[in-house]
């Protein structure tokens, strides 16, 4: 299994501008549910955001003090910090459609 680490700027196509979507995924250790969420997120981002995003993965077991800032209660929680306003999606992100609605991403196709 791939260790979860803070992954920054997963830019596929080269554009020096700030990515449009800034996402944070809060997890607590490498539970199956966390890994599930992570892989679901990757898939959705690659399919629908194509490089125009940044994902930060925060492991609350390592940095519990970060939980209060974003009012994290449920695990896993995906927070869209940009664009404003902030949105939260909780759960393992298995329903792509709901994630897209939640993140307010218009389908490209």
């Amino acid at each position, binding site marked *: 299994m791939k260790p979860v680490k803070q992954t920054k700027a997963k830019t596929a196509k080269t554009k020096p501008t700030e990515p449009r979507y800034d996402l944070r995924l809060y997890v*607590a250790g490498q539970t199956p549910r966390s890994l599930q969420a992570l892989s679901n997120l990757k898939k959705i981002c690659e399919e629908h955001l194509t490089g125009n995003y940044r994902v930060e993965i925060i492991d609350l*077991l390592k940095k519990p003090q970060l939980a209060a800032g974003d009012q994290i*209660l*449920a*695990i896993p929680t995906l927070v869209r910090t940009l664009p404003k306003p902030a*949105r939260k999606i*909780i*759960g*393992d*992100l298995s329903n792509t459609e709901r994630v897209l609605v939640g993140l307010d991403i218009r389908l490209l196709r």
Partner: protein
Amino acid sequence: MKEKSRPRLSKALTGISGLDEITLGGLPRGRPTLICGGAGCGKTLFGLEFLVRGATKFGEPGVCISFEESGHDLAMNVASLGFDLEKLQRTKKLVIDHIYIDKSEIAETGEYDLEGLFIRLDAAINSIGAKRVLLDTPEALFAGLSDVGVLRSELRRLFGWLKEKGVTAVITGERGVGTLTRHGLEEYVSDCVILLDHRVQNDAVTRRLRILKYRGSTHGTNEYPFLIDEHGISVLPVTSLGLTHGASKERISTGIAGLDDMLSGQGYFRGSSILATGAAGTGKTTMGAHFVDAACQRGESAILFAFEESPQQLIRNMRSIGLDLGRWVKKGLLHIEAARPTAFGLEMHLVRMHHLLAEYKANVVVIDPISALLPGGSAHDVHALVLRIVDFLKQSGATGFFTSVAVEDDMQSTALSISSLVDTWILLRNIEVNGERNRVLYVLKSRGMAHSNQIREFLLTPHGVQLRDVYLGPGGVLTGSARVAREAEERRELLRQRQSEKDRQLSVKVALRSLDAKIAELQAEKEARENQLIAAIGENEQQKAALLAERDSLRRSRGMIDSSGRSPRPNGRESKP
């Protein structure tokens, strides 16, 4: 011995006054306790006081997870109770974490758990080594998350986790319809459940607390009234006080000299209960004021509960009979607590009395009038309340003086039927006779002392209450102007007696004096006679001498005498002088 060696449930003192007595030592240590009740019944305050007392009194830091109010709001809300949450947070004795879920900004997709809550709680507990936790109220989560199944299982896990963590937790829950809490938290928290209640009775609100369940421990099972005031919560274990109070032999003055005399010269017993009944305007309040004044003069502390007058009014009125209660108030010896009896429920009155008595450490308590509590509840309730007051005062060693308004033609029974509870009962009456109305009093009973059986008239003078002497007329005790007339007559009689006495003395004196005069007269006469006698003797001698001289010259002329003058004497006696 076997009982003692058995491991007992460890308890954590709450520091909430009265609660630790009811629970026999506090909440179960290391276990969660559920506090439930309707809106505004004091759940959050209960929890916060548990944390604050733990942090300040017992050295147990606490964590407050608030699901409803922000930390700032909480701090503001309890600042009036003297709880400085911000300072506690600065000194690392308290952590407040506000957890909220805004449903509008959250979407749910797929499975999740509430590990975030656990992590935050764990971090907070570890950051200050907390021993106490307040969750206020996790039910708010039900509004934010739609997956009730997950929520329930997570809450169950949470309470188990708290237990494992060994923290003493208080969880609040809003009361639901037909259930203790809206979302059935009681299913998960089953060690100790405390119910808070907020009841309106005759337009007055009384807060009550009941321990519904306390696994592994005995506890008081009744409903106990409690009070929220500037000292926080206080619960009153006021029922079932046994008759175990001590009995002092010490006597204390009634403040009225004449009344002291009627009670075998020494006044009431300390720690006894005194009831003064009478119709309107018979001087009940005045009697109470005298008692209070006497206590303050002895340097004791007194509380006067006035249900009919404001403190200023009472002080002004008592000044008219020469009692300056204002100076005792200024000195801090007297506290006048004035409130309309309908301002609170019955229990609330009792709670306030408890409170004030503890605060002022009063030796003397006057309730004026206790019958004012009557409209506050059913006869049974009021009777029970008065019983509690009497018992409670005796338990604390304070002397209680109650006044009660009685109907004029039914003097021997009080509406409160408390006459059997009190030790000394003084009856005040108006007697209408000869077209006037006069105040009399008598001691109906006074346990444990010889007391006067007389009906005494008393006057409200500018120097206080004064008992008059007893005058019996043909129709019984004379009062008012009849007594005054009798007093005047008596005075006249006395005067007459005194006058005749004087007369008699005078006449004897006159007789004596005349005798003296007579004696003097006789004395003078006696002296005169004596003088006469002396004079007569002297004359006689002179005559005799003259006669001799004459005879001599005669003899000489006859030449019968020699030149030497010697002459033969006719008798020997004369010739030899």
